[in-house]
């Protein structure tokens, strides 16, 4: 049986007919929309490479059935920059060498963006490590990742202060 669903992906509404309910959000993004920035690492919810935001919250897209997320608002790594202007978290990852091979990086960045919105870590490196523990980096770029997130968090705090001043 075919199932119709619609999603908002990076701001644009997309309609899909699913001829198989087994399709995950990860496979839908990669195979149907060719948005291959979201990576398939373990495909079992252990590595975090597939992290996207669904309705503003970071989740593992490999463990989410697309059919169950009818109507959801999805943000992927392809949707975070504004034209040529990188998202502050993207810029911070470059500035601090927050990657080596880069495979985990889209998931790391989406997770960091989600984490900053959750506002549970602040500028505490230990909290950042804890709150980013769902994203593995086999190259071991963790020190750069934490520095990048700290800088992005500091930038966000500063712009919040400017706005409220």
């Amino acid at each position: 049986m075919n199932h119709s669903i619609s999603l908002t992906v990076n701001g644009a509404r997309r309609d899909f007919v699913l001829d198989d309910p087994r399709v995950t959000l990860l496979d839908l993004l990669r195979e149907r929309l060719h948005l291959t920035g979201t990576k398939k690492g373990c495909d079992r919810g252990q590595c975090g490479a597939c992290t996207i935001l669904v309705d503003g919250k970071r989740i593992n897209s490999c463990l989410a059935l697309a059919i169950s997320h009818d109507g959801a608002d999805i943000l992927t790594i392809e949707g975070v920059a504004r034209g040529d202007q990188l998202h502050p978290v993207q810029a911070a990852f470059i500035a601090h060498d927050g990657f080596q091979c880069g495979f985990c990086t889209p998931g790391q960045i989406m997770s960091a963006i989600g984490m900053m919105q959750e506002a549970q870590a602040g500028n505490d490196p230990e909290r950042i490590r804890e709150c980013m523990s769902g994203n593995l980096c086999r190259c071991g770029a963790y020190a750069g990742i934490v520095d990048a997130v700290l800088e992005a968090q500091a930038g966000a705090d500063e712009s919040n202060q400017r706005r409220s001043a």
Partner: protein
Amino acid sequence: MKQFDYVRPATVAEAVAAAAQPGATYLAAGTNLLDLMKGGVSRPDRLVDVTHLDGLDQIERLADGSVRIGALVSNADLAHDAEFAKSYPAVVEALLSGASAQLRNAATVGGNLLQRTRCAYFYDTASRCNKREAGSGCDAREGENRTHAVLGWSESCIATHPSDFCVPLVALDAIVEIEGRNGRREIALDELHRLPGHTPERESALEPGDLIVAVRLPPAAPGFAAHARYLKVRERTSYAFAVVSAAAALRIENGKIAEARLALGGVAAKPWRARAAEDVLRGVAPTADAFQDAAWRALADAKPSGDNAYKIELARRIVVRALTLAAAGTPARIPALPASPFASTSGAIHA
């Protein structure tokens, strides 16, 4: 993954009817179920998606002082509810010590209760597993079993229940509200999960079609808020299941323990309430000797199921430490590394 039919019921009654059919199973976030389906461990014919049902995602304070947590509330939303955290801090510490932020954002309260064991032999379809395939045998018995059960296990199954959340819940007398073919009923969380005996494939008291719609904490539960902790030893400091964990909650009046609650995680096929230990703490001062006594009683019936005798001593020490921390008082904020015995001062940098 095996092909399945997908059903999205509009009401709880429709959901129960759809899920009562043989081969049907409920889908909530799917963070455990999809993993099991990808591995061929779970092979449902029909998924009944309950995530679009109305009214199951609320945290309600009831007039009698209970709190009622809808089955579809996410682990993260519950943990980040400030009022809930103030009243039930050990529950929040347990939630935040489990899984990863991504999984906590998706995973639901009902799903957490019904998650399956992480026994590697249960997951490996080439291994014999009485839980996965009744009567096939148990390769964990003679296998890699250093993290397996030390309480309540049987020759048929030595798997543990992996939930952190359930441990303080069972200590605080949580109640599970169930909608089934014969209407609404409720049972103590302590009665939800079954010990394996000869039928490890039957993991819970739920009947076909039964849907957990809410978990309730009774009016007495917030009375422990000033002295409540969850402590969890795992093989890495974050994003790992418990080797052993404990929830300890005390009500201290005039320097004596008026009432104690204690439960263990990672030691049995269910969250393990240690009532004998609670009994010896009633009416005594919160001293190291009293906590040692409680720890011995909590593990009195423990026996190794393999290379895991160390877990018995570890559990005793975790019990003593959790009780000691609880007696010292619930911290104003959840520690930077929730439930970790290795928690450093917030802000400290370690390698």
